[in-house]
């Protein structure tokens, strides 16, 4: 169950490659607790205890970068 200080990112599968979102989560595991779930047309990424930090934004950027790079 996500806590209040968690961030949930909903990344559309049409825009963020789900496999690469999972790859990004593996890399970010050192800095945050991340859970990835495929839900319908989105990949949901729960980043634990991040509050107002920059980790969610950095993660989203990295997932986007990997998607762009893969093309």
């Amino acid at each position, binding site marked *: 169950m996500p806590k209040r200080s968690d961030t949930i990112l909903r990344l559309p599968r049409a825009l963020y490659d789900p496999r690469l979102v999972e790859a990004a989560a593996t890399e970010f595991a050192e800095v945050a607790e991340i859970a990835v779930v495929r839900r319908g047309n989105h990949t949901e990424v729960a980043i634990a205890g991040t509050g107002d930090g920059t980790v969610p934004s950095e993660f989203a950027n990295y997932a986007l*970068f990997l998607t*762009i*790079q893969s*093309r």
Partner: protein
Amino acid sequence: MISAAKIRYKNLANFRFTKLGEKYLLTTDTGRWVFLSEGEFKGFLEGTLPRKAPLYERLVADGFIRTKDSDVSEQASRYLELNASLAQGPSLFIFVLTLQCNHRCLYCQVTPEKKGAEGFDMSRETAKKSVDLAFRSPSRHIGIEFQGGEPLLNWSVLKYVVKYAKAVNKTAGRELKISLVTNLTLMDEEKLAFLIREGVSIGCSFDGPDYVHDRNRICLDGKGGSYKPVVKSVKKVQDALALKKLRTKKGFVDNLNAILTTTRFSLPYPKEIVDEYLARGFDNIFIRPLSPFGLQRQTIDIIGYTAEEFIAFYEKALDYVLELNLAGTPFVERNAALALKRILKYKDASYYEMRSLCGAGIGQLAFNYDGKVYTCDEGRMADRMGHENFRLGAVRSERYDDVIDNEVTRTMCLGSSLDNQAGCADCVYKPYCGICPLANFIEYGTIFPQIPNTDRHKINKALFDYLFTKLQDEKYGRVFESWLA
């Protein structure tokens, strides 16, 4: 205001563009470039430029506009001229004669061993096999470059390689060039006489005034920095070369050249460093930033800086160099000159760091003291740091074909192709730029990093922005042309 709906793509050849200042800079794959005002750029895109105007004719001639008479084979020739070294096979062979060194420079890329350490010298047998492998390259040009540690600490093998390579070349008939990279502190009359007589080009590191040089380059004999012995040796070498030039009627006699490795200690002194080079009789300087190999990883907190700090330093140094040139003192910054060869002459500068694909495995090879073969000098440095991914094999056991036609080489080609890097493929500077996948791997853990975030991208972009901005002023264009004369 440019409207997407009005763009006529039919007659637009392949070009890349960016806005630089108030104008648009456009480049083609063959290295041609042009500055257009906003109105001219709009006319170019919309196909409304007057057909008989000089600008239209220039854009056709340079390959920006496609007509029914456009000649693909001419474009192919131009492309080949800009990228000639890609097709010739390896032509630079690094011979790591020893890992011993009498210095501990703070930025040393090598992670050297102390002078006297055993088991770190190239043997004659390994040297012979390395020369044999080098001459199996199809390239017309064979360049042998002695590196270390300090190569003069394996003097007997150095001499052997020079003699043997020349003997082999009597039959092979290539353009053979042999060069030595040395810290100069172990240069004596005997060694200098041999090198001068055999036509071995000499290059050294020189970091400027003593208060900079001595902080970076430390002798292991307990006497501190190496400024004094280096300056003494610089004079000896230059005097000897001057005499050789006087006595040489035919043929080229290379100058003693020096490289500046920029550290945090250098940053406040761009002008002073250039002045020191002039005072020591150099007519050129090669300014390079730190690279992420060797001892630098341990000393980065002391000597490191941001890309922005290096760029500020470099631009100040270049500004001063240009000022000197305009005042009548010829002086070249070689890093810029290599880029300018591509920009102004549309010719390949054979500088593997600014080439797509880089030279790893296909332009250069490195033969380590122990007989292992690497994609490049940085490859053997990476192995010293524990990354053996860039090893191609060993001179004892490998056939030439297996060394070159190797998945490591292919990976390096993929990692250094600008067409494979998001952002680079569309970049206006693509015809002139390059990537080091090894440096990316060491620094960022991948050969496909976020290019816009890498220091090397920022530095390269700043260099090209600087050069092209200056090229809009004819007086700087004339200085740059003089560097390439």
